[in-house]
């Protein structure tokens, strides 16, 4: 499974992506969690201490491209090799790789940026599931940071600014020929909120996560909600979500097989 979480800042992408990665790993899958937001985020939701562990400088080399300095993974290092060597070991067996985080005045992440892109170009294939947390907003998520994803989950809260963002993302996804794009209604407080999300974004809602005060507390403490409340509403909703996404993928795989057997 290859999924990426997108949506407005603050919609709950990191919390849900981190929980999703761990729940999926708990079902026996090998999971790589990818945080491409240069803000600390997914580490908290995974329950990983190293909030700043990007690729080390030794993993990336500079080279000259017609007078311009560029960066790539060092010679001999594949994306899969970088994951095996440098991805942090998180709870439930999740491996975790993040874009190095912004620090200090005149911070420059060019090196990190290209190193991370090099990994995205060559992600581990067979036997791995990938769960990505993309930067907030609508800046070309489908063609760049999320290009590995087979399913995009647009996290939407049921209020206008978030719905508007969801609708913009749905439009961009169509223009970018993104694969499957589904909505995830988050912080739902009232019956009808999920339907509202579907109607206003034009997206199919694959899951609903209720407003969860425990999650708000866990965020304040920088704790994973899965550790704070393993059987609470967020964990329960994400377990259903994992199953729902797996079901969709199974249906699509069956249809792909049928298409091959009965060419029209």
């Amino acid at each position, binding site marked *: 499974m290859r999924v990426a979480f997108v949506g407005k800042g603050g919609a709950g992408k990191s919390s849900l992506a981190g929980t999703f990665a761990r729940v999926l790993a708990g079902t026996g899958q090998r999971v790589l969690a990818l945080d491409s937001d240069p*803000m600390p985020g997914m580490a908290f939701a995974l329950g990983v201490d190293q909030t700043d562990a990007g690729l080390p400088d030794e993993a990336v080399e500079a080279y000259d491209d017609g007078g311009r300095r560029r960066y790539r993974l060092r010679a001999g290092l594949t994306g899969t090799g970088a994951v095996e060597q440098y991805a942090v070991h998180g709870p439930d067996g999740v491996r975790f790789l993040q874009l190095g985080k912004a620090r200090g005045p005149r911070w420059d992440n060019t090196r990190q940026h290209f190193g991370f892109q090099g990994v995205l170009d060559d992600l581990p294939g067979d036997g791995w599931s990938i769960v990505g947390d993309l930067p907030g907003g609508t800046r070309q998520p489908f063609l760049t940071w999320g290009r590995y994803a087979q399913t995009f989950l647009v996290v939407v809260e049921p209020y206008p600014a978030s719905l508007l963002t969801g609708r913009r993302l749905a439009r961009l996804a169509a223009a970018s020929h993104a694969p499957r794009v589904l909505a995830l209604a988050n912080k739902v407080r009232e019956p009808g909120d999920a339907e509202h999300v579907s109607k206003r974004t034009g997206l199919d809602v694959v899951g609903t996560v209720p407003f969860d005060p425990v999650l708000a507390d866990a965020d304040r403490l920088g704790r994973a909600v899965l550790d704070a409340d393993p059987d609470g509403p967020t964990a329960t909703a994400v377990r259903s979500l994992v199953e729902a996404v797996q079901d969709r993928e199974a249906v699509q795989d069956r249809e792909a097989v049928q298409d091959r057997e009965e060419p029209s």
Partner: protein
Amino acid sequence: MKVAVVGKGGSGKTTTSAVLARTLARRGHDTLALDCDSNPNLGISLGLGEEATERLVSVRDAVDAGQEQHAVSADDLVQRFGVDAPDGVRLAVVTAIQNPKPGCPCCGISPEQLLGELARPGRTVVADFEAGLSTVLRLDGRPVDVVVVVVEPTAKSLEVGRRAAEVVQGGGLGRVVITANRVRDDQDVARVRAAFPGLDPVLVPDEPAIVAAERAGEAPLDAAADSPGVRALVGMAESLTG
């Protein structure tokens, strides 16, 4: 006066910018609000409603798609990509576009640069920047008067805010005003104060009335002017005018 509003996504930047811009305008400032977010929602928080907000965005999109003329100057940009908002605030959407023309005054320069271009004596410019830190880093060499760093008392948001404040102070980029939204209890107060020693953060209580206004797509200043949360934001705005 040039004011930049920064912080993590979802921490309340846009709500804070809107109350700030309208409060300054009510106090007689000629106020220009710039929506620099690639996902622009400031119109909603200013009280323009969803439709007018999307209309502004679509003009910007049309320029990007080559269906509309580019603005010929920064002032033309405010005219063409702007609209009059409540209390006399002028709102302009200056989001970065995907196909900019290098050097073009409406899309070829960064929002941070534009903030400088549009400043002039007698005018106050409030820029609601894109979430994250890159925007603060681009202020390097282009100091403003005030950088409002908006946070909420979560570990993530405080971490982003702390780094933003460090960059602004380290680079001498402006006076830092920390605004902490959704403060619920003494523990939250302690967390915020511990993250910003010596900076005397403005504490905005967790405010159901602001949540309700956002869910209704209304400006907090219209829907909940007397609530403690909005009053705290108004107080922060007034403190900037001295």
